[in-house]
């Protein structure tokens, strides 16, 4: 594949060679062309393909959203922003946004807390590190479809394992698939189960990047393990936590598989009364069941803007926090290290230092 990319660029100068500047040998000119053109040939496949299958469809979605457009009959006239207006006053659209955000919050917050806990446990000097690290990643290799099948069985209202258990403890069974809040909890559980271990490993990497010297000096100063965790570990991994939140946001706002397959017996995707119909699922229903491409494209573009907005917001906040954090933590680290060094010097090397200092004073 790669080899086929070069021939055209080598032939071009060959044709032009005799006409201009005969002094420069052909080989050099070929070489110069190779140096100048090769980088573009290497990045070209990416940009061409990405433009065709990534950016063009996204841009064309906007064109479709400005038209009346049916799945079967095609474009039916320019309507301007009417599709957007119609969607912004459609209660189903707002319902889907509410569900998406609700499920996202129910999954992001507990996930982050538990992931930090797992990472903190893994960050210790445990035996069989690799085994335990791999073990928290097992849910990640179960595909979302399989996860949904497993959990939609466990959350079944009549025979599900969870309601069986609740009834054993004489609690009322929960209507996981018909009530709004329980269904959001159930769907968030699936997301959490699959992604918590993955995020824990990202946070673990950040924790391991914290220099151990600081912990040592803090321990010397008498800070216990819990104190060290809250005032040193957590602030140091904050940028990584924001990274995790951003990726969780971009993924969470596009959640589709879990609500689509949660309850297959309902005719409307996302629950009989759209209790857990997320925005992408709403888009899907609008485009491919109700065949309204125009409105569905408008929904796609509004969701796109929301995601980009969230991304930019997270990025800006993250950057600000990270930079102030880096500055203050740098200062703190420097202070702590200085204190630690003086202590060490006091204890161990005071004599040697005094000697050097004296020697230097003598010299000057």
């Amino acid at each position, binding site marked *: 594949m*790669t080899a086929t990319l*070069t021939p055209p660029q080598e032939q071009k100068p060959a044709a032009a060679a005799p006409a201009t500047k005969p002094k420069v040998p052909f080989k050099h000119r070929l070489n110069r062309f*190779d140096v100048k053109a*090769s*980088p573009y040939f*290497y*990045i070209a*496949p*990416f*940009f061409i*393909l*990405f433009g065709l*299958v*990534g*950016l063009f*469809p*996204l841009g064309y*979605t906007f064109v*479709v959203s400005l038209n009346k457009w049916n799945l079967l009959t095609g474009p039916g006239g320019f309507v301007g922003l009417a599709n957007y207006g119609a969607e912004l006053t459609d209660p189903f659209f707002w319902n889907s946004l509410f569900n998406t955000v609700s499920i996202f919050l129910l999954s992001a917050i507990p996930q982050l807390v538990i992931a930090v806990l797992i990472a903190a*446990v893994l960050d210790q*000097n445990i035996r069989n*590190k690799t085994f*335990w690290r*791999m*073990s*928290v*990643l097992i*849910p*990640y*290799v*179960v*595909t*979302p*479809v*399989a996860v949904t099948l*497993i959990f939609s*069985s*466990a959350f079944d209202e009549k025979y599900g*394992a969870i309601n*069986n258990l609740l009834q054993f403890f004489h609690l009322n069974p929960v209507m996981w698939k018909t009530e709004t809040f329980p269904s959001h909890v159930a769907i968030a559980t699936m997301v959490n*189960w699959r992604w918590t271990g*993955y995020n824990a*490993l*990202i946070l673990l990497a950040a924790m*391991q*990047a914290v220099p151990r010297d600081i912990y*040592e000096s803090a321990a010397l100063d008498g800070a216990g393990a819990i104190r060290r965790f809250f005032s040193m570990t957590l602030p140091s991994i904050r940028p990584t936590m924001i*990274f995790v939140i*951003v990726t969780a946001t*971009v993924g969470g706002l*596009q959640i589709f598989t879990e609500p*689509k*397959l949660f309850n297959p017996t309902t005719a409307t995707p996302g629950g009989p009364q759209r209790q857990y119909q997320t925005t992408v699922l709403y*888009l899907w229903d609008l485009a491919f069941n109700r065949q309204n*491409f125009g409105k*569905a494209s408008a929904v*796609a*573009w509004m969701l*796109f803007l929301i995601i*980009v907005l969230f991304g930019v917001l997270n990025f800006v906040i993250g950057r600000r926090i990270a930079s102030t954090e880096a500055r203050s933590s740098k200062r703190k680290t420097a202070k702590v290290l200085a204190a630690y060094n003086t202590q060490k010097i006091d204890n161990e090397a005071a004599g040697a230092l005094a000697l050097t200092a004296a020697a230097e004073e003598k010299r000057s």
Partner: protein
Amino acid sequence: MTATVERPAAPQPKKPNQAIVPGTRTTRPKRRKPLGIDKRPGFLTYALLIVFFIGGTYPLYWSFIAGSSPSSVLTQTWPPLLPGGLFWQNVGQVMDTVPFWMSLLNSVIVSTVITISVVLFSTLAGYSFAKLKFRGREGLLIFVIATLAVPTQLGIIPLFMVMKQFGWTGTLGAVIVPTLVTAFGVFFMRQYLVDVIPEELIEAARVDGASMISTFWHVGIPAARPAMAILGLFTFMTAWTDYLWPLLVVPQNPTLQVALSQLQSAKYVDYSIVLAGAVLATVPLLILFILAGRQLVSGIMAGAVKG
């Protein structure tokens, strides 16, 4: 980035009175005061680890129990601890309901082609961005980074129209084409290669008369190999787990995920068969995990630091 890829299995002489600091190179054993920060953790830590382990694996194990038993097991308050003997019978029903082998083959083809394409084009572009000088490099790289977070999944409507226009719906090409390249792949390879190849090596190859492409082939590719493996693993996983797009374009010629979801599309859902199917469909990735789990772990941890 290379420095942060952990080699967890570094053999270290373990003496009980000598604390080993994780994350530092222990070429020379360091003597440290027993400050209590790197001592072996106690019982509570392992108890928590076991809890996480059970939490992560029990749902899968439970599916195996339910998938190997008659559906009456699901109504019991306490599911049995050991799997029943009906797994193969339930698997047989799965295969009667959906075209399992065909969909497995489809998934293998789709994921493999996407992986090869993403890794090849990402390495090529990443190498160019990391090590070659050309006009517009900075601008184009910023463009790549800016598109990292663009949810291309939202372009499904025009993509679907195009696929229909070309008559590709129902063919595997329709599944493959939209994910032939990713911005993440290019950025990932660039970040890796920028540190890992010394400029002198490229210059030396050029002085020896190697063309640009053969420099890439003999210097770039060997250096990029570890990152290519990690990118390949994650691309394969992502392609394998994708559901929305294949469901749209190849419902009649399904990938494994689509076939699996069709198990429960009936009015009456027999969960023991559905769960047998879920377990069966998890086996390929579980095998991949057993073979390459370490690389997955170090890939996630490496990506975190710089990503």
